[in-house]
């Protein structure tokens, strides 16, 4: 199942003009607030009518302004998880969850309800009303409610933005399960690099109403030309496998045959996870450094250099573990003679890797 979107819309001095594909897995619309992400999702859901556009889910056309087709929201079969939950206050959690069922052309079997309740841990909440739920609980119910309407795809507009860090950490795994277990395609809006690194199968990077990069998550996040939320926020993602926990509180991972040492991560040996390494936490060295406190040294070759507007430059480095991004000064890049093809080493401090960037 794949969603194809092409939209053009103008409002109040802002012009949106995008085209992208969202294949299976989680496609994250990634960009700053005001980049047009929510407008796109609303247009896909049918809550906003764009001036021009075509939206199709596989062969099913949801919107085609040229052909005069615009299905109303209730006939699009897209489950929408809103930023503010939007649970029905007059219904219990159970009734909220069952709400979409009565309108579904192929209602989910009762066993599906039990499975979703189990997956999202909603059992103890079923008889409560939304007014008595915490923010994190509300979002879990909202996810379940969208799923149980048997949609062809899930839309999620910054579903974690209104939550604090602890609640975010509580909800993120449920989206991972959505991706890995339910296998329903998800279009997910976010401005958080950490969320993108954790969840995205595909990234569509947006800036000022335009697509500035799209493709498989690791490729787009490792591309120095794509910085939709600014260079300070840039970081490449490595895919790694948990090898062992060391008694001194470190966890050893393996990526492309290279060892990576991280502050303790959860899980058993063999677990696959993604590690986001912020570009500004990476030091580059031509020679293999000796007598250094940093524990992770990855050899590689320079792939591309993008000089910034200021004193900085963004360097992408191809290593056996995957593509890394390093943010260094242009002066250093010049002094080291960095150019595409040049061999060099990336140095990453273990403690610089935040727990939220691993998972």
């Amino acid at each position, binding site marked *: 199942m794949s969603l194809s979107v092409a939209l053009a819309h103008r409002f109040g001095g802002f012009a949106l003009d995008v085209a992208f594909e969202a294949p299976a897995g989680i496609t994250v619309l990634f960009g700053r607030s005001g980049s047009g992400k929510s407008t796109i999702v609303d247009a896909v*859901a*049918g*809550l906003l009518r764009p001036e021009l556009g075509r939206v199709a889910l596989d062969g099913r056309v949801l919107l085609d302004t040229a052909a005069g087709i615009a299905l*109303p*929201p*209730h*006939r*699009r*079969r*897209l*489950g*929408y998880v*809103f930023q*503010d939950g*939007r*649970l*029905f*206050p*007059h219904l219990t959690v159970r009734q909220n969850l069952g*709400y*979409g069922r009565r*309108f*579904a052309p192929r209602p989910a079997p009762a066993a599906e309800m039990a499975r979703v309740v189990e997956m999202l841990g909603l059992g103890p909440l079923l008889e409560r*009303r*939304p*007014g*008595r739920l915490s923010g994190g609980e509300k979002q879990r119910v909202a996810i379940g*409610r*969208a799923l149980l*309407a048997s949609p062809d795809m899930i*839309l999620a507009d910054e579903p974690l933005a209104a939550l604090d860090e602890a609640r975010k950490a509580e909800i993120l795994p449920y989206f991972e399960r959505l991706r890995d277990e339910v296998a329903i395609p998800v279009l997910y809006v976010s401005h958080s690099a950490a969320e993108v690194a954790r969840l995205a199968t595909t990234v569509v990077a947006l800036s000022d109403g335009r697509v500035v990069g799209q493709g498989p998550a690791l490729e787009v996040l490792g591309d120095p030309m794509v910085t939709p939320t600014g260079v300070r926020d840039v970081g490449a993602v490595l895919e790694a496998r948990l090898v062992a926990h060391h008694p001194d509180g470190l966890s050893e991972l393996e990526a492309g045959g290279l060892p990576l040492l991280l502050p303790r991560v959860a899980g058993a040996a063999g677990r696959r996870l993604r590690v986001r390494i912020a570009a500004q936490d990476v030091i580059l060295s031509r020679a293999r450094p000796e007598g250094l406190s940093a524990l992770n040294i990855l050899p590689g070759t320079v792939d591309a250099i993008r000089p910034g507007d200021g004193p900085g430059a963004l360097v992408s480095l191809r290593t056996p573990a995957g593509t890394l991004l390093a943010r260094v000064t242009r002066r250093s890049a010049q002094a080291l003679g960095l150019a595409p093809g040049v061999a060099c080493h990336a140095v990453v401090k273990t403690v610089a890797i935040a727990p939220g960037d691993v998972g």
Partner: protein
Amino acid sequence: MGWLGAEAWSAILLSLKVSFWATLGALPFGLLAAYALARWRFPGRGLLNGLVHLPLILPPVVTGYLLLLAFGTRGPLGAALAEVGIVFAFRWTGAALAAAIMAFPLMVRAIRLSLEAVDPGLEQASATLGAPPWRVFTTVTLPLILPGILAGAILAFAKAMGEFGATITFVSNIPGQTQTIPSAIYAFLQVPGAEGAALALVAVSVVVALAALALAEVVSRRVARRVSGA
């Protein structure tokens, strides 16, 4: 109940009947008008708003007279309706119509306020879950504005119980047929020595009004708690 004469009793029962049907009959129109004013943008919206509020600002006698012109046996609407057997002039049904029209602005205001307080985001959520527009209305909007509808209905009922000017102008003051509590009090006050009967009806009026107010408070508080999701 010896302290209330037969005439007073019939006025009380008639008032209750008239107010009940006036409220019930006005409800669907009140809901529609409130929805149109709160949600739709259409040419003539200002005019509709003015028309709805007209009975509130016109002297009741004028409203009653206009009703008589329109719905009297020789009025354009009255004559047409008489063909199908519906007669308002000088009947209790006419008293109900007058009361409904006089109570209409209050009812519309209460419902409209509660409609404007409904988060449109909830209705959008309902639509994305597959609910067609009329189901969005019956499963989300309607339950959420229930406190407003109840408040509007109780307010309208209380107003109908007290309606005098339009009623007496439109359907006169016929004991047992169109003589409601206010008309009966007025009639008693015209007769020397009937002040006692008038006072008894005054007491009934006060009790009914206070009871309606208390009921409105209790019901709306209970429904509001249910609807707020706590």
